[in-house]
């Protein structure tokens, strides 16, 4: 079962089990989450979708808002910034499509920049699940609170779930080993890419607030590789800030900034962006070979 399919089940259950929960949609998901007195489908009106969620939050409800990432984050960005953030209201934004799940649909349906955009606004908890079970835990946690949460669902998945709210070391190399921080669904390709290498691999699924304390505790050498499944470098500033008092080198991998004009399948895009095991391995090898002057 995909994260998106599970989300529709969980949102439906939450409507019936939690009187505070409301679901706001702009057509996407309306066919999957059955009608309910607190399921509001506003039609193809994404700015209204966020405004309605803010109104529900003002009335004490816990709104879940859902659409494809570009239509949830990018199109109504000012409503996200002002109707939620500036009004100091909470909501749970749950996106699908991620960076390139909907590759056949083209650029209009791809949002590798979503996390960077939300990270530019204060007060957001940003969750990047790497497994369907993680996404379920994230939604459950989000519904218990009143803060602003973004959960970024994807078709990509790791083999097993990990609680990545805090940075977790998955494999420990030597003291001088390259430290690779894999975010969300990049963990499996990172593990495959570094299987026979002296590398420390850590995992993180909550990228904001960023676990700087965990990173400082886990990094022992100087070389850090950050692998994110969205715009490259989105969390590079967080890593650099956490290690600002230590000599270190940082390689930030992710979806490169640029108009990538291809359709096709998600795995083809992942490979083209160098985010499959082969690409990650090649990038790490080049990084290690680069001498400091």
């Amino acid at each position, binding site marked *: 079962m995909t994260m998106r399919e599970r989300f529709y089940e969980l949102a439906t259950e939450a409507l019936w089990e939690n009187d505070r929960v409301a679901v706001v949609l702009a*057509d996407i998901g309306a066919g999957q989450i059955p009608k309910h007195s607190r399921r509001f489908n506003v039609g*193809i009106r994404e*700015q209204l979708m966020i405004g309605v969620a803010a109104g529900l939050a003002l009335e004490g409800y816990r709104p879940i808002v859902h659409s494809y990432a570009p239509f949830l984050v990018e199109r109504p960005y000012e409503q996200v910034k002002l109707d939620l953030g500036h009004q100091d209201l909470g909501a749970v934004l749950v996106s699908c499509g991620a960076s390139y799940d909907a590759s*056949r*649909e083209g650029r209009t349906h791809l949002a590798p920049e979503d996390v960077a955009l939300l990270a530019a606004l204060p007060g957001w908890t940003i969750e990047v699940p790497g497994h369907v079970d993680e996404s379920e835990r994230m939604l459950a946690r989000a519904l218990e609170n009143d803060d602003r949460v973004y959960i970024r669902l994807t078709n990509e998945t790791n083999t097993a779930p990990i609680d990545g709210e805090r940075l977790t070391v998955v494999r420990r190399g030597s003291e001088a080993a390259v430290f690779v921080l894999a975010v969300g669904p990049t963990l499996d390709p990172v593990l495959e890419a570094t299987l026979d290498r002296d590398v420390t691999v850590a995992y993180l699924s909550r990228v904001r607030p960023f676990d700087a304390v965990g990173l400082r505790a886990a990094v022992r050498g100087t070389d850090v590789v950050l692998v994110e499944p969205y715009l490259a470098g989105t969390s590079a500033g967080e890593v650099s800030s956490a290690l600002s008092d230590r000599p270190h080198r940082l390689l930030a991998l992710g979806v490169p900034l640029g108009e990538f004009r291809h*359709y096709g399948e998600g795995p083809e895009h992942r490979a083209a962006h160098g985010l499959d095991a082969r690409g990650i391995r090649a990038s790490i090898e080049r990084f290690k070979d680069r001498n400091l002057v």
Partner: protein
Amino acid sequence: MTIATKLGYDDLPALMTRLTGDEKHDTSAHSTLDVLWVLYDRVLEDGDRFMLSKGHGPAAYYALLAAKGVIPLELLDGFGTFDSPLGHHPDRTLVPGVEIGSGSLGHGLGIAVGRVLVGRRVFVLVGDGELDEGSNWEAVQYAGRAGLDGLTVVVVDNGSATYGWPGGIESRFAAEGWHTVRVDGRDHAALEVALSKRVAGKPVCVVAEVQR
């Protein structure tokens, strides 16, 4: 530059069968077929521009461009694949003859207004569902008040809007100063007359009604 073909309207359905993988948008694509044909076969003149704002279901559009020799027929078979220029939503930088990249709804009208303001005659195809997006109405209001008579919008009304348009789509355009008309979206003669209409000082809205 176009490629000479002997293909006509009757060939379009067969061409569309070569575009597989986007079946969820079949209704969307078939709804636009006659409007597209009439525009390209009978209405558009040299210098005119057409923009498919409703980028959903572009199979009919690609089939038409192939039939008119704007793109090679062979391109149709790779629809949606990694190296094909033909995706499930069109990209103007990849497909000759495509004037805007679309697929996120509600962008075409605003861009069209910009072109019309500097003298271009522009036709824009939007869907009735697409009109849910508020950005359309900013353009509708401005175009009406600015009297942009170089702009023709054809709304393909296949009843997709989640809550419909009580009182009719055309009444909302008329209130903003547009000339409006509703026609059978399969009637080529009626479409030709409606789409060819120009009214001094008013943009034109043609609502082309089709059954899903």
